[in-house]
């Protein structure tokens, strides 16, 4: 059994961590909460130069053809750094959607651009508040045009195109559509204030915008969306576990340097045990992420169960560790200058992107029922 990363993957991780420590310090994230830019272009450029956007794109489409084990390593480090870039939208969702369901023409057109950073993609699923279900999709596709309202969409203000979930008015089936976002007459976007302004969010109004269906091959289109979400869930979970471990380290370090009542605060059981529980939750989630990474990488039939397990446990671990990290810091943990809130905000973004803990708990049980 080899349930671990290779030496090359460990090396990649060290390289990624070093790059992000330089290129994405906490102050950069903090200032991204303010500025109006939808993402940090300089950091994004660096990420593209590192080849991360090209990682899992096959070489024939201008990518590096690396495995998903490389991509999860990158995801973890981006989570640890709370990077203010549209990586999850463009790589975990748009790129994956094209790889899963794009036509040869679509792949030839877009994958090289995604790989070399000349395009950013995103994914539009939600239509208002509440849990996604195919029945709740009202955005319609007809005669090559798409109309409707998608909200909330992550990173669309940064993106060149958007993989959009819509209903074909002929077949009444829900499927994926590629829509370029530079259609000024037919698309309007409204920027939204959010809990994590270091990433941009908007609502998109499509009014007869040009759209191309993703042909999806032999897969039924509802299954396709589930497949896409399962694959993305693994990558999101790795980002979450990266952030969760960073918060545990912050908490531990602070608890060693801070004194109260003549002792390091880390010597009090109330905090020691809190951190032991943070560690336990993070470790369980990380181990589930390992399993999910294996399932993603081998496209194993266990993927739906493994993805949901990783996603639920990583969401829970990050919520717990990001909030208790503030608590362990006390007053300063709630200041703008300390980094605790960056993770607390991002934790929330990651928790509701692609479906909440609560939605994935349900999926997890469904997946075990189907596997049985």
């Amino acid at each position, binding site marked *: 059994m080899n349930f671990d990363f290779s030496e090359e993957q460990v090396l990649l991780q060290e390289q990624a961590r070093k790059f992000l420590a330089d290129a994405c310090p906490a102050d950069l994230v903090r200032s991204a909460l303010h500025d109006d830019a939808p993402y940090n272009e300089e950091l994004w450029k660096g990420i593209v130069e590192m080849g991360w956007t090209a990682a899992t794109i096959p070489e024939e489409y201008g990518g590096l053809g690396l495995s998903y084990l490389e991509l999860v390593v990158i995801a973890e480090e981006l989570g640890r750094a709370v990077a203010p870039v549209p990586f999850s939208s463009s790589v975990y969702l748009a790129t994956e959607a094209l790889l899963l369901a794009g036509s040869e023409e679509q792949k030839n057109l877009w994958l090289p651009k995604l790989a070399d950073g000349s395009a950013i993609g995103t994914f539009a699923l939600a239509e208002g508040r509440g849990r996604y279900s195919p029945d709740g999709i009202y955005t319609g596709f007809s005669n090559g045009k798409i109309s409707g309202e998608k909200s909330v969409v992550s990173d669309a203000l940064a993106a060149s195109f958007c993989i959009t979930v819509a209903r074909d008015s002929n077949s009444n089936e829900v499927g994926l559509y590629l829509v370029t976002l530079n259609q000024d007459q037919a698309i309007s976007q409204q920027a939204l204030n959010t*809990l994590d302004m270091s990433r941009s969010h908007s609502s998109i109004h499509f009014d007869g915008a040009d759209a191309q269906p993703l042909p999806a091959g032999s897969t039924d289109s509802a299954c396709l969306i589930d497949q896409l979400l399962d694959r993305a869930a693994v990558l999101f979970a790795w980002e979450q576990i990266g952030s969760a471990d960073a918060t545990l380290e912050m908490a531990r370090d602070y608890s060693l340097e801070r004194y109260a009542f003549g002792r390091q605060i880390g010597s009090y059981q109330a905090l020691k045990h809190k951190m032991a529980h943070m560690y336990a939750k993070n470790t369980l989630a990380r181990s589930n992420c390992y399993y999910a990474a294996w399932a993603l990488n081998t496209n194993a039939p266990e993927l739906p169960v493994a993805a949901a397990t990783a996603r639920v446990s990583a969401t829970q671990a990050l919520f717990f560790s990001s909030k208790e990290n503030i608590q362990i810091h006390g007053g300063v943990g709630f200041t703008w*200058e300390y980094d605790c809130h960056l993770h607390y905000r991002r934790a929330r973004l990651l928790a509701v992107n692609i479906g909440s803990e609560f939605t994935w708990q349900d999926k997890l049980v469904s997946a075990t029922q189907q596997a049985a």
Partner: protein
Amino acid sequence: MDFNDTPEEAAFRQKARNWLAENAIPESELEGDNLIHRHRPWLKRLYEGGWSCISWPKRYGGQGASPIQEVIWNQEQSHYPHLKTHRFSVGQKMVAPTLMEFLEDRPETLERLLPPIASGDETWVQLFSEPAGGSDLAALRTRAERDGDAWLVNGQKIWSSHAVEAKWGFIVTRTDPTVPKHKGLTCLYLDMENPGIEIRPIKQANGESEFNEVFFADVRIPDNQRVGQVGQGWEVAVTMLSHERLAMGGENFGVDYEALRKLAGEVCIDGRPAIENAQVRAKLADFYCVEAGLRATTNRAISALSKGKNPGSETSINNMVIGASTQEIAAFALDLMEQAGIVLDESTQESSFFQQAFLSIPSMRIAGGTDEIQANIVAESVLGLPREPRVDKNVPFNELPGGK
């Protein structure tokens, strides 16, 4: 067991209700964007009508009301939420009772200081916490050195609310670093316009700036502004903190059961209102149990007051449980909205108060004593469990690891 007033209580309630009906200022007539400026005219009217700080003795601006009368007054006043004068509570609920206790023998000083607190003319800032302090308040390092009939204060305070508007500050200082830390402290009050004071707002994680850092450089404070004896500062400060704990709590940022139920009726899961989902129901039920339990606990305390008894220790759980449970349920509310849970639309408060609460609640679990400190208090003062061994008890302050 009933929910009725005694005849005396009913009469008092009627009187309060009538006065409020006749005198309450409509929301539209409040002016200014700062709550202190906004509410000053109302506080003035309360004071002139005899309804400010009603439990204080008459000579200091109150009407010598009983604890249950104060409860009734608060209940009646709560029907006018736009007139909630909590921005004045440092002076009214914390400083004033402490001054009355420790300056009991100086009624002329109290006659100078207390009425302007009741009338809202003068507000106070508490200058206790320090960067190195936190839960361990007594580890403070701000020095006060004797200089003739005055003290020279140097150092830094933090987490001071509304320092800019304050006329007066109430500060605890270290006057002797060579004795164990609790023994070398002294409390003073000071005019915040004294030279040498610098106030800098602290930007919070939620983007607001409710608190300040306050720096002291050779600030001179006359010794006759000392509260309590030299070296008695810890006792004075603890008295004030116990008033703070009573005054605090109850803020839920709008996260209550009704708001949740409304949300769960609006958002859908698989085409049905979320409130039909069993997991949503379980979470709602658990939160209702906490909310109703705290409300009923308060009612038990009020009953005790009504009978002239001590309200007991039950309410001490409030601070311990409300923050963490509200944080959980706010997160769950955002989960219910799914992708839209991230949106914080500041233009329409009601549509995003769960988000605002989510961002602000961490401070609720820290300010005025962390959850962990509150649990210590419950364990020690209610259950009688032993304190932890103290390594800093008998060591001179300047020899402690954090006291350098």
